[in-house]
């Protein structure tokens, strides 16, 4: 990526204050309300360093949880939760069978996060309006409005949202809403040393992602594909597209992602129709039985 010319205005280590529109220098994007922003996570360059997890916890003041050993390789956070909004998956598998020695194993690593769905099921399920879509096209829980009903938890097809038993409210990644408002890129993307997590304007990220898949396929990684692109894998069942999408090299379920996620709202009309049909059928049967008896 080319260096932005404004970088030369800030060459000292000690700065007087926050750099205005800092994201323009770190990502190439000036954060403007009304545009769509998200993450493109290229799992092929993730090294499992967990800098994203740490940066997320630091910025959002989230406490460490799951203090015991998980027994699941290098994974010590286990899963996304009310206190863990970034989770690095470690999947041990034979990823380079042609290059590896028999005793070697390969690793697939992926930093999982809220997908900030275009048609967010959690937002559709929220009865209080605590979950809302921001001016940056991200999905955030307003803590003062959330009543902890937990409807958003089963609504999320990715198992992201969690209700804390300690404060009784739903929690999930905010895509660093406060940082975006201040012109900063999200903490996880800024901390990522390999640019596996890229933050930016969605249409530009889509172009980058397509280019990267082409590069990988030309380099011989035929299994590379995008999860969460419009009408592609991960954006099924009316989700349309995910604002946090991924480049994967194995089936989605290998990364603990659903193969075909759907909006629960899709099932409302068929369920209601089935219920009404059942009531109508029972009513007709009752009428038939009573009229025959008379």
């Amino acid at each position, binding site marked *: 990526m080319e260096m932005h010319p404004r970088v030369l205005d800030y060459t000292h280590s000690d700065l007087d204050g926050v750099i205005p529109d800092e994201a323009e220098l770190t990502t190439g994007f000036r954060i403007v309300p009304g545009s769509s922003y998200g993450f493109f996570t290229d799992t092929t360059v993730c090294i499992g360093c967990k800098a994203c997890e740490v940066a997320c916890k630091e910025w959002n*003041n989230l406490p*460490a949880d799951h203090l015991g050993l998980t027994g699941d390789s290098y994974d010590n956070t286990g899963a996304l939760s009310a206190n863990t909004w970034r989770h690095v998956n470690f999947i041990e598998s034979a990823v380079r069978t042609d290059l590896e020695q028999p005793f070697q194993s390969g690793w697939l690593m992926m930093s999982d996060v809220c997908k900030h769905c275009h048609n967010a099921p959690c937002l559709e399920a929220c009865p209080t309006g605590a979950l809302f879509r921001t001016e940056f096209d991200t999905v955030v829980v307003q803590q003062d409005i959330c009543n902890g009903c937990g409807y958003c938890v089963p609504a999320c097809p990715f198992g992201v949202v969690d209700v804390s038993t300690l404060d009784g409210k739903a929690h999930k990644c905010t895509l660093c809403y406060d940082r975006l408002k201040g012109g900063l890129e999200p903490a996880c993307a800024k901390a990522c040393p390999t640019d596996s997590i890229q933050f930016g304007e969605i249409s530009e990220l889509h172009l980058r992602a397509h280019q990267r898949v082409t590069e990988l396929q030309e380099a011989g990684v035929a299994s590379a594909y995008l999860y969460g692109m419009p009408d592609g894998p991960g954006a099924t069942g009316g989700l349309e597209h995910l604002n946090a999408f991924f480049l994967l090299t194995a089936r989605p379920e290998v990364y603990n992602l659903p193969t075909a996620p759907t909006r629960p709202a899709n099932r409302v009309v068929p369920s209601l129709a089935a219920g009404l049909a059942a009531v109508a059928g029972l009513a007709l049967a009752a009428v038939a039985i009573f009229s025959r008896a008379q």
Partner: protein
Amino acid sequence: MQSIQGIVTIVQEGRFQLVDEHGVGHHFLLSHRASLEPEQLPGLQRDQALVRVWFEAAPDLIGHVAARIDLLAATAPKMPLHPAPAASPAPAHVQETV
């Protein structure tokens, strides 16, 4: 219930960090039974007010659950604020009260 005195330095939603007189940072989550709301926390941080936090241990978490916050002074006295280390699970100098 235990309590600790200090100033609120970081607030995010219902989570906050309290720095005690020794410059040690302690991590808290506001309980759903707490006597104040999360939107009252940023004011305490802005004013750097001296507060006493009454808390309980949080299971499987490096942090505490704050049940009550008492405002001791509207602005904090000059405390030697050293760079606060990460939140510690069990402050040794915590006052034990019933």
